[in-house]
């Protein structure tokens, strides 16, 4: 199994840490993992993205053009990465702030109202966990308990009390991911 994922959104949305938790979960399952962020001034306030690969073979290039899954969290990232999903691949996005919805019909497209849900749960910080939950619902490539183990690893001690909340967020996310039918076609 090899899963090649791009996660893209704003700097503040916890894009990089979401990728990191996913990678850690992979390690918990003895998979090979790589995590390659975009870096440098384009992060300046604007978009951030990270390529995460989980595989049971040695990973050659951590840097990719095409992905099995794209998790897209703002319009700029949608413009940039909609066409980077492999045919038959998966595109998950949060409709919040999206003015131009995806139009491809050779891939599966799902929506998850991460921003809204996080707002309802009154904790912006768990936004990325909600999204992660949605993704894992569609691609259960790692077990939840390993995600939690990964969380423990990547969070510093003094945040461990937040783990239950994050776990909850993951489950909420799993329940709130819905297919998107674009009406264009």
């Amino acid at each position, binding site marked *: 199994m090899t899963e090649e994922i791009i996660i893209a959104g*704003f700097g503040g949305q916890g894009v990089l840490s979401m990728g990191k938790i996913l990678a850690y979960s992979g390690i918990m399952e003895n998979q090979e993992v790589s995590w390659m962020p975009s870096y440098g001034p384009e992060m300046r*306030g*604007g978009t951030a993205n990270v390529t995460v690969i989980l595989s049971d073979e040695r990973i050659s290039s951590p840097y990719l053009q095409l992905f099995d899954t794209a998790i897209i969290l*703002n*319009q*700029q990232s949608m413009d940039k990465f909609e066409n980077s999903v492999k045919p038959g691949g998966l595109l998950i996005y949060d409709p919040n*702030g999206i*003015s131009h919805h995806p139009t491809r019909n050779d891939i599966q497209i799902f929506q998850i109202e991460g921003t809204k849900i996080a707002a309802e749960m009154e904790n912006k910080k768990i936004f990325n966990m909600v999204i992660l939950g949605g993704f894992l619902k569609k691609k259960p490539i790692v077990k939840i308990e390993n995600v939690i183990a990964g969380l423990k690893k990547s969070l510093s001690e003094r945040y461990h009390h937040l783990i239950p909340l994050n776990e909850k967020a993951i489950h909420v996310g799993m329940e709130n991911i819905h297919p998107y039918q674009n009406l264009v076609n």
Partner: protein
Amino acid sequence: MAKVQGAIAVNTEVCKGCEVCIPVCAEDVIGMSDTVNRKGYHYAYMKNPEACTGCTNCGIVCPDRAISVYRVKVSA
């Protein structure tokens, strides 16, 4: 006696929602939109237009020069 009335035009796609224009407005004219622009930023707008005096304070502190300011004399 002639008083001035002002207005601002915000280039909503240029605005980055930094809000530094808000505290410099003595008349509390400026508010931030609920919706976001294409870049994902909430943008400035005149939440109470009639108060604007066209003093240009907002314009001069806007790093992105998203604001143009207009002013007219109106006789009361």
